[in-house]
């Protein structure tokens, strides 16, 4: 294992310098929904260094094995560590060579255990994860937070997405969305996040996972409209403003 925790002195001064206290490079919201053929997930490609939008080519969604897709917000280095754990998991699963493979439900459970156990050691992996996939026709979409809270739903989001995207999805999501409708719905959510989340950037990817496998779009940007009359002279009438 890469990180050496002095397991026996978790309360000592050396141990404190090894625990995660705050994230450094973070990704913002991930939004995902179930549609007719599988799962659609969207995330932008930004990695913020505090309030600086430092990295603009961060892929925050990755395929896990044959059946799952993982999206993460939060600390990017912790996401990379999680990918390493999952890489080992999938490798050992492949080496059985017995015709079986880990499905999204199993991967979600593994991630929950991982996150919750780290939280109990007061050394969390500072991420909110979205795990979606489809195996043998059964679609699955779940989420795990950095404190180990996990659940599954027809549509999930992390961070700001919970506040801005979920309400839209609650209104407009329905069973058996077509691919085009699903993408349109995700883009609607991502556009609101782009307008209102200051750590969002206008460079996103949409990934889909179906029985055939995972595909991820090339990065693209959404069209935005800033000519709303409410945006003109925004400070007129505001006391103390110029």
């Amino acid at each position: 294992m890469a990180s050496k925790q002095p397991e026996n002195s978790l309360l000592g001064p050396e141990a404190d310098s090894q625990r995660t206290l705050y994230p450094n490079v973070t990704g913002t919201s991930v939004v995902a929904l179930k549609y007719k053929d599988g799962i659609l997930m969207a995330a932008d490609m930004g990695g913020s260094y505090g309030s600086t939008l430092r990295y603009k080519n961060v892929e925050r969604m990755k395929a896990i094995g044959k059946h799952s897709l993982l999206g993460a917000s939060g600390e990017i280095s912790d996401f990379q560590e999680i990918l390493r754990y999952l890489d080992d998991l999938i490798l050992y699963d492949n080496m059985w060579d017995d015709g079986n493979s880990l499905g999204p439900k199993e991967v979600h459970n593994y991630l929950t255990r991982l996150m919750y156990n780290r939280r109990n050691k007061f050394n969390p992996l500072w991420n909110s994860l979205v795990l979606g996939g489809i195996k043998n026709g059964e679609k699955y979409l779940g989420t795990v937070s950095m404190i180990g809270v996990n659940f599954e739903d027809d549509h999930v989001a992390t961070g700001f997405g919970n506040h801005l995207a979920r309400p839209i999805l609650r209104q407009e999501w329905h069973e058996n969305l077509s691919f085009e409708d699903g993408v349109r719905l995700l883009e609607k959510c991502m556009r609101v996040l782009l307008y209102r989340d200051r750590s969002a950037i206008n460079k996103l990817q949409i990934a889909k996972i179906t029985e055939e496998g995972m595909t991820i779009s090339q990065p693209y940007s959404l069209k935005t409209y800033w000519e709303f009359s409410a945006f003109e002279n925004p400070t007129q009438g505001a006391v103390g403003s110029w």
Partner: protein
Amino acid sequence: MSSIGTGYDLSVTTFSPDGRVFQIEYAAKAVDNSGTVIGIKCKDGIVMGVEKLIASKMMLPGSNRRIHSVHRHSGMAVAGLAADGRQIVARAKSEATNYQSVYGEPIPVKELAERVASYVHLCTLYWWLRPFGCGIILGGYDRDGPQLYVVEPSGISYRYFGAAIGKGKQAAKTEIEKLNLSEMTCREGVIEVAKIIYKVHDEAKDKAFELEMSWVCDESKQQHQKVPDDLLEEAKAAARNALEEMDAD
């Protein structure tokens, strides 16, 4: 060939007067008494096959795997004491994942063979350990192309184009030498390996056997895996036909 090493064969840390370590030679005998294991290096990959002698009719076909994946790109076929083989495979898997973790790339097959060989050799250096009673054929595909290695209980390891260990190794080696491996694809190689194993199988001494084959080639996207079922059936059928033709002569 077999000489009794009276007195000098009690411990792996004892040399005989003529410079042999008998315990290691006895370990090699365990390999020679097991079912044949073959590996060949074709143009585009490696094919390995095992003659799994079936102890009981009640065993489920497909159980007791003798070929194990060590990482995505390599696998090992084991001859000899199966439990010893499991230990070596576990160690090889651990070496492979450790290398990947430290160096960020899959372990080169040469490096893996060296590590497995030195682990096997380790157990020939101490009197409180016994040598492994198994021979390993290790096949993998890295950026230097497909490679085939054999590791013996003594800890030596050589690289081969074609190799055979176990009961029928002499007959199998003769057959392999007849093949034109540099022109053969793995698809063709699978058929040839099946034919050889069926041919060297001794119907009189050992009743039933199950054929287990794996490959790592361009067709399998450089991943080590069981030969696909349809190709395996095709190979078995071809092998049975070849045997019948031979008997008909």
